[in-house]
């Protein structure tokens, strides 16, 4: 027996999917332990071992791959728990992180405050040095500035340092020397050099990437080391990979040296997984992929089968958050999930979220000291959940506690019955989720009614059909693996990375020799990746592209380039044709008279580890005896009803059913209102016709 493990640590639950190679899939969930997230991972693995009557050591010893997604990095940024980080910048330019690239949204809204720099001015140091546009040294590095700054940093207990000098991408000598000085004077202090982490033109993006990366290094270095050593200590001898914001995976050790790529680890997988399940169901429409966890609701839009991609990733809103300077899978997140807390404000308005009860204490009904009623408490009160069967029976629920909390915090101030109050919580969170989807559909001019909703995540089943009704969607797909959507995505994702080089050339004076050298260097790095991390992969692919634009434009289009590069005028002409055509397609005009400038060169390498592109089937649980056939539940639109009660694992495939109904499986409860129909497909997914 050989296993692959995929885990995804969310704010509330740690999901685990175990794939037995040549066998079946099984899914487990353990509570996330915020103070020690690795424990949640080990807890989930322990559940899996017990389920197979193995010891943890025996299970792990049979593992060949362990893939991990984590919100640890983003949580640290959002809650301000990153390392105390300093910023070294070219003399004369202390405000790079404050000026940013300018720009603002909502021109008449002065209620939005100007953002604080990622690293405060008090920890910013100007270093005497200057490199010019062609890499020439205008002012040599004055090492005494660096040494003086480092002495202050030592006294100020700084844990990490970001270095970004102007034009370091053309001549990195000063940044490299500064790195050496840091190692010499502050050995053991982490640092990031901007030209290494993000070799792109525009100093703010590079500085911001360096600052974010440096601020994560101590924390993520410790975390990933801890994860690897504890899993290995428990008997695992295979490979530990971590999911990246770009929707691929990389070795844990490599990522601890560039932790900025872990920021969107986990959520980046949901459109990949959603797209996979839709393909298996032969769905061709656009997809709204949702992932309802305990704390957040993640949404993404897959159009024409293309994984959504954002060219400049912001942590927080555009212009007031912080830019990572890298492209990533485009997944938006709001604070709404099973653990979302509800309350009534002084003006009598009901709110649900964005705060979450998390895993500890969790919803009131867990009986672990939670005081504030949550979305899960509302669903229990409405009768959707079986108190004895939650999380496969591992978490007993206390309905009386949930009812009392809703009565006190919501029903009394709203002067409603408890059931009405629970239904109000249900409706408010549904509307919040609808608005999150509007942001990525209607606001982009896309009608959500034409798309299929993918309901992923453990809490998706409660209200996804209502969300679909509000949006006008006709179909909702609940994947059998929906409770661990990102972990499922992790199993089908590839080892992937990209390399970039900044080099300026133009179509009328194309530097064939230099471009050849740039392309060779990029291909060489890809070859090293294939031979290193990608050594045992089943399949490799490398793609090249160029960031190009018309003369004096400043925003580039990424144009694919043939794998051999551009080595003669015929190939150049073909490449330019491709650029003109793409420009016309995207922007309705082309300008064949214009010079084309090329500034960034990108190589992406992908190594496929799986042999079988199709995931194993989810192992059904054995049918429970003495299972009731109906349950009385309260529906927001129709009130109390006797809903048909079905065990998902025991349902016959392809047989149509009518709502009102509640479909239960180990980790999910799907509520289907009157007027909707549903079927369990041959692929093992639940498809609802709204």
């Amino acid at each position, binding site marked *: 027996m050989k296993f692959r493990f995929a885990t995804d640590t969310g704010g509330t639950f740690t999901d685990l999917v175990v794939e037995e190679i040549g066998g079946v899939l099984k899914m487990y969930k353990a509570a996330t332990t915020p103070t020690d997230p690795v424990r949640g991972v080990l807890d989930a693995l322990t559940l899996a071992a017990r389920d197979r009557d193995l010891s943890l050591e025996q299970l792990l010893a049979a593992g060949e791959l362990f893939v991990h997604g984590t919100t640890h990095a983003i949580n640290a940024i959002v809650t301000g728990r990153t390392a105390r980080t300093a910023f070294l910048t070219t003399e*004369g330019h202390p405000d790079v992180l404050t000026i940013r690239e*300018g720009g603002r949204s909502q021109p*008449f809204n*002065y209620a939005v405050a*100007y953002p604080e720099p990622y690293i405060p001015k008090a920890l910013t140091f100007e270093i005497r040095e200057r490199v010019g546009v062609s890499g020439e040294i205008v002012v040599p590095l004055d090492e005494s500035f660096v040494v003086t700054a480092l002495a202050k940093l030592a006294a100020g207990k700084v844990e990490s340092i970001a270095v970004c000098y102007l034009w370091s991408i053309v001549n990195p000598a000063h940044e490299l020397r500064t790195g050496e000085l840091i190692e010499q004077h502050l050995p053991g202090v982490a640092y990031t050099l901007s030209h290494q982490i993000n070799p792109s033109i525009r100093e703010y993006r590079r500085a911001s990437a360096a600052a974010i990366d440096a601020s994560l290094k101590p924390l993520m270095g410790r975390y990933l080391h801890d994860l690897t050593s504890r899993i290995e200590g428990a008997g695992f001898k295979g490979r530990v990979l971590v999911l990246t914001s770009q929707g691929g995976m990389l070795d844990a050790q490599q990522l601890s040296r560039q932790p900025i790529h872990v920021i969107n680890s986990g959520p980046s997988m949901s459109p990949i997984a959603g797209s996979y399940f839709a393909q298996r169901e032969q769905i061709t429409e656009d997809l709204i992929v949702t992932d309802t966890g305990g704390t957040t609701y993640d949404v993404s839009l897959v159009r024409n089968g293309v994984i959504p991609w954002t060219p400049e990733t912001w942590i927080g809103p555009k212009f007031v958050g912080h830019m990572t300077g890298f492209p990533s899978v485009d997944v938006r997140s709001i604070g709404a999930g099973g653990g979302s807390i509800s309350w009534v404000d002084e003006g009598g308005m009901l709110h649900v979220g964005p705060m979450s009860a998390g895993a500890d204490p969790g919803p009131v009904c867990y009986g672990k000291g939670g005081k504030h009623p949550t979305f899960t408490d509302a669903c229990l009160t409405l009768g959707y959940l079986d108190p004895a069967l939650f999380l496969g029976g591992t978490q007993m629920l206390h309905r009386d506690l949930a009812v009392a909390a809703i009565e006190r915090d919501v029903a009394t101030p709203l002067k409603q019955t408890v059931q009405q109050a629970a239904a109000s919580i249900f409706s408010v969170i549904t509307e919040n989720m609808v608005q999150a989807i509007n942001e990525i559909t209607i606001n982009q001019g896309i009608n959500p009614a034409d798309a299929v909703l993918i309901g992923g995540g453990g809490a998706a089943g409660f209200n996804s059909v209502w969300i679909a009704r509000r949006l006008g969607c006709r179909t909702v797909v609940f994947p059998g693996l929906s409770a661990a959507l990102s972990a499922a995505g992790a199993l089908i994702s590839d080892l992937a990375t990209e390399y970039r080089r900044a080099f300026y050339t133009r179509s009328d004076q194309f530097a064939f020799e230099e471009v050849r050298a740039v392309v060779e260097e990029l291909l060489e790095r890809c070859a090293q990746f294939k031979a290193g991390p990608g050594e045992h992969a089943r399949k490799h692919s490398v793609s090249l592209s160029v960031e190009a634009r018309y003369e*004096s434009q400043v925003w580039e289009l990424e144009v694919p380039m043939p794998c051999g590069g551009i080595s003669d005028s015929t190939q150049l002409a073909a490449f330019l044709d491709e650029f003109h055509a793409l420009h016309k397609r995207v922007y309705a*005009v082309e300008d064949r008279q214009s010079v084309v400038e090329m500034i960034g060169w990108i190589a992406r390498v992908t190594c496929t580890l799986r042999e079988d592109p199709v995931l194993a089937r989810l192992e059904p649980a054995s049918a429970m005896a003495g299972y009731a056939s109906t349950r009385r539940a309260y529906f927001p639109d129709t009130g109390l009803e006797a809903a048909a009660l079905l065990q998902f694992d025991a349902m016959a495939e392809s047989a149509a059913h009518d709502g009102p109904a509640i479909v239960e499986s180990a980790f999910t409860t799907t509520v289907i209102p009157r007027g909707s129909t549903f079927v369990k497909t041959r692929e093992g997914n639940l498809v609802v016709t709204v």
Partner: protein
Amino acid sequence: MSEKHQVDGARLAILSNRLEGIASKMGNTLLKTGRSGVINRAKDFSCCIVSSRCELIAAAESLPAHVLGAELITQSLLELHPVLRKGDAFLHNSPYHGNGHAADHTILVPVIDENGTHHFTVLAKAHLADIGNSIPTTYHAMAKDVYEEGALIFPAVQVQRDYEDIVDIIRMCEMRIRVPETWRGDYLATLGAARIGEREMLALAKEIGWEQLHRFTSDWLEYSASRMSQVISRLPAGNAEATSTHDAFPGTGENGVCIKSVVTIRPADGMIEVDLRDNPDSLPCGLNLTRATAWTAAMIGVFNSIDPTVPKNTGSCSRVKVHLREGCVAGIPVHPTSCSMATVNIADRVTNATQAAFSTLADGIGMAEVGAILPPAVGVVSGYDPRTRKSYVNQIILGASCGPGNPHTDGWQTLICSAAAGMPYHDSIEQDELYHPMRVYQRRYLPDTEGAGRNRGAFSIRVDFGPVGCEMEVGYASDGSANPPKGVRGGGTGGGASFWKIRVDGTTEALPPVMQAKLADGERIVSISCGGGGYGSPMERDLASVRRDVAAAMVSRERAASVYGVVCGADGTIDEKATAKLRSASRPG
């Protein structure tokens, strides 16, 4: 809310977002394909969808100065060209026919169905790097009339028929506009944006039908008017006036230009009136406003002062009456009055006076003065680039902070001016050095330059730059030295603008406020932008904010004590006792 309203609300939300989505797509095209810095970095452009009755319906989020003027310009199109055909496109930049100023080239494309019925007009308007002025800048402050200004004027001139260029017009422009390749690229970008708007509107009509679209249009404008009227009904009734003074420029007289705005709020009628008639006559220089910009500048002052969620379109604007006078510097110009700088300078003073008038009516509305522009760091650079052996003319946006303290927040640090409202990008130093033979020696905010206040203004920003290996001209026209941004409701005045030259030997040379500065190789120009005025008394500023500014070394400990009444120790901690004492001593009575 009744069931019927909810249904309408959902449709309104979807279609209004959809139309805004189309306008955004147009705007994205202009941003990404434009050639001159003023488009692709400064975002000095707008894209709008206007009904066949010349009502502004939707606009891409862009510079406030642009968006609101779409009605006047489409009205003049229909007057000059009563018969429109599918495939037509018109170039319009005439300040005497509803356009903002000559530097904004607008492309208008009528959206016409297969039966030849005109349903909507889409327009894309962009500020260009050059428009054929007599000097290499689009801001000709000293021009005594349109002839000296020298711009080519196009009063809704047809440039495309059956989707093909009328090449005579293109050739004229190529002969009379500097860096013609850049102009051509910008023309294509603007045209592309308008054509994308047309394409998307036709597709939307195919999907939901023209009738539904027109029904939405009237519902949407009605909804916007009623939102505006509700917002006005919650304002205090009253009448207030305020002034804002523009520095002396060539042609203004030595006292500069004092602009007065009289604001009347009539909550019971849901109406606001802004009267700009009591202002000086048109001046023999490029500062005069046009009808579009005078009206827009007043509207910006109004929208800055009220609930920001009201949609900005013909519906909401119908609840505001702006009184203008013909032959007035802030009114309706008569040909050949020059309006070269009509979107900035005096326009910003109109906005300042209007929002300051609001602020006198109650705490929590209005704003302090926004800093004035255009200092050299947002001026126009030109010259010959020995690296590419080509001439260049381009506006740079290297540094202008100017944000005003307001009821909610401190001043925005990259606001630039009221008309721009922070929407433009600030240039990356590396981009500017790559594009032009120049070096930026420093760029930093200056401590103690904020207009102090409960919510303080932005800090001034200093930028030193100059040519490398060649000469360079920097054209600028900077207001805000003699009249730095004033605070309101007890807030302090922010830092003023200043500028000088540093010669190769390190000596300095003072420069006048309006200038085509010539810099030799190795010389530098220093540009200090205005800060912003403060809102409310600095003695009421919360302690944590003062501590944060002191920790960042942006407010000195001396200033914290003398202006904010906050006593900070050398380690940055606040001495609360001493602070309370100082603050209570400053309280009158």
